[in-house]
């Protein structure tokens, strides 16, 4: 009984979650003129026109490369630093632990605002610099807290026995903690990777160089073109601007949706590999024994 309800529930949920994707896929491969008339379940006509159009965008391959680079390096750095810091905070004997931990926690709730942040980044020489994608956000309080909480839920006996064996902190961290923490590390890796992959704002604000442009900024601009124009028109009040904006062909819905597909597919390809780690981990019992 429990199973039936459970499976039925998940089946329904899957439909709810997959349908929008199916819709976008179908829309992106339909004939643009037919698609505008409305699509429900099946494509109208078939064309790869939209995909071709996106692939022809100037600098799209470089943008893809930059996005991959920042995701890979950003995630690696972030996972390492956060895991290390989370581990350190889990050690009760660390001097000043409480104070520093609170300092870290507070960063989740305060922000100086955009202008000072920009000035800070500028003073550190990070404008138009690849590192601005990976350094400022490398340590995320949220991730550190998750890891610390996870480590604390592990039996103390594990670490203690290792200590007795004479292992140093770093050895314990790399040999015992890291493997035990695989599930949570996989989790923050996914968070960080998706965060890096999806982020466009740092690109928009701090990097004007076309060589360092990311895929997401391109996507963002396509998606928000209409909104941005509408917002900017408020500033103008010039009827010529209204007219030209209305007459201007905005990016067709088909291309918008295709860009969304293209930026999401890589996540879908990588995600299932990460999943193994959430579910398996290394059995706690295995090490204890």
């Amino acid at each position, binding site marked *: 009984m429990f199973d039936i309800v459970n499976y039925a529930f998940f089946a329904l949920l899957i439909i709810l*979650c997959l349908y929008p994707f199916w819709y976008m896929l179908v829309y992106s491969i339909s004939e643009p003129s037919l698609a505008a008339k409305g699509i429900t379940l099946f494509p109208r006509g078939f064309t790869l026109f939209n995909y071709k159009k996106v692939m022809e965008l100037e600098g799209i391959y470089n943008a893809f490369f930059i996005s991959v680079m920042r995701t890979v390096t950003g995630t690696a750095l972030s996972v390492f630093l956060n895991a290390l810091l989370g581990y350190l905070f889990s050690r009760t004997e660390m001097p000043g632990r409480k104070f520093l931990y609170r300092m870290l926690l507070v960063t989740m709730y305060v922000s100086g605002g955009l202008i000072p942040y920009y000035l800070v980044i500028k003073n550190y020489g990070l404008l138009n610099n690849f590192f601005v994608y990976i350094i400022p956000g490398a340590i995320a309080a949220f991730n550190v807290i998750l890891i610390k909480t996870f480590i604390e839920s592990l039996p103390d006996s594990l670490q203690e026995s290792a200590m007795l064996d004479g292992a140093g902190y770093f050895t314990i961290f790399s040999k015992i903690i890291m493997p035990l923490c695989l599930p949570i590390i996989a989790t923050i890796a996914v968070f960080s990777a998706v965060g890096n992959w999806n982020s466009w704002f740092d690109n928009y604000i701090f990097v004007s160089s076309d060589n360092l442009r990311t895929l997401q900024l391109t996507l963002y601009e396509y998606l928000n073109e209409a909104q941005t124009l509408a917002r900017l028109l408020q500033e103008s009040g010039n009827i010529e601007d209204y007219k030209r904006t209305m007459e201007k062909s905005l990016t067709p819905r088909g291309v918008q949706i295709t860009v969304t597909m293209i930026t999401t597919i890589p996540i879908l390809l990588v995600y299932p590999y990460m999943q193994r780690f959430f579910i398996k981990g290394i059995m706690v019992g295995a090490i204890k024994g």
Partner: protein
Amino acid sequence: MAIPLMALVFLFSYMPLFGWIYAFFDYKAGIPLFENEFVGFKFFELIFTDKADMIRVMKNTLIFAFIGLALSPLPMIFAIMMNEIRFKRFKMFVQTATTLPNFVSWIIVFSLTFMIFSTEGLLNQILFSLGLVSNPTNILTNGEAVYWFQTVLGIWKGLGWSAIVYVASISSIDQEMYEAAVIDGAGRFKSALHITLPGLMPTYIVLLILGIGNFLNVGLEQYLVYKNALTADNIEVLDLYVYRLGISNHDYSYGVAVGILKSVVSIILLVIANIITKKVRGSSIF
């Protein structure tokens, strides 16, 4: 070892806080700070000048916040339910599928909902052809339905994604406990209730407290996209309100003042939540 790491935190999270000083000036970008007019607490007072608006906006923010609070166990429950799927491939599939909506940006979600829920949308066509309605309904213009409709959308988009943390935590629960429970004759439901749930509690509590700290930060983008003349009254949360004022007034300092107040409120809430947890559970999170 923690020092260099905390230095990074200091450099990127604390250094920019010097900008709080902008709240006390009528700051215009480009003009050196001290050449701007010093206005003291003017912008803080301004926040409370428009009482009617502020009350409305706070009401909306609190409603969304409380709904969020009430629904905070959902991802955990969802993860437990997923954990009960025995067929492993299906479990993986469910997990991937439910995270998908998280990757669709709100703009696209809006056009999807427009397609489904607008006057001529899919839903009305179906209802109409079934003879269930004679006049089309449009939930996107229904001011009263804002709270639950936006909540449902938020859950749809975020549930699978927020469950990931719990899925990971489940794997840290000692398998021997389940084996022991089976020997004791406990069913799966009992095991879930007495082993999985308590095992996830520390994570839940931590996330809950962090969430309470974020009480006033209910988000912006979703509400921005769904705001229209008819929903405006109920959908305008604090962040959206500040965003709107910022655009029309060019008041940089006003935004900073709101930010400072929000930070203060957040930290107070965080501390209170932590103290309560300590009283109730005997351990605090920081």
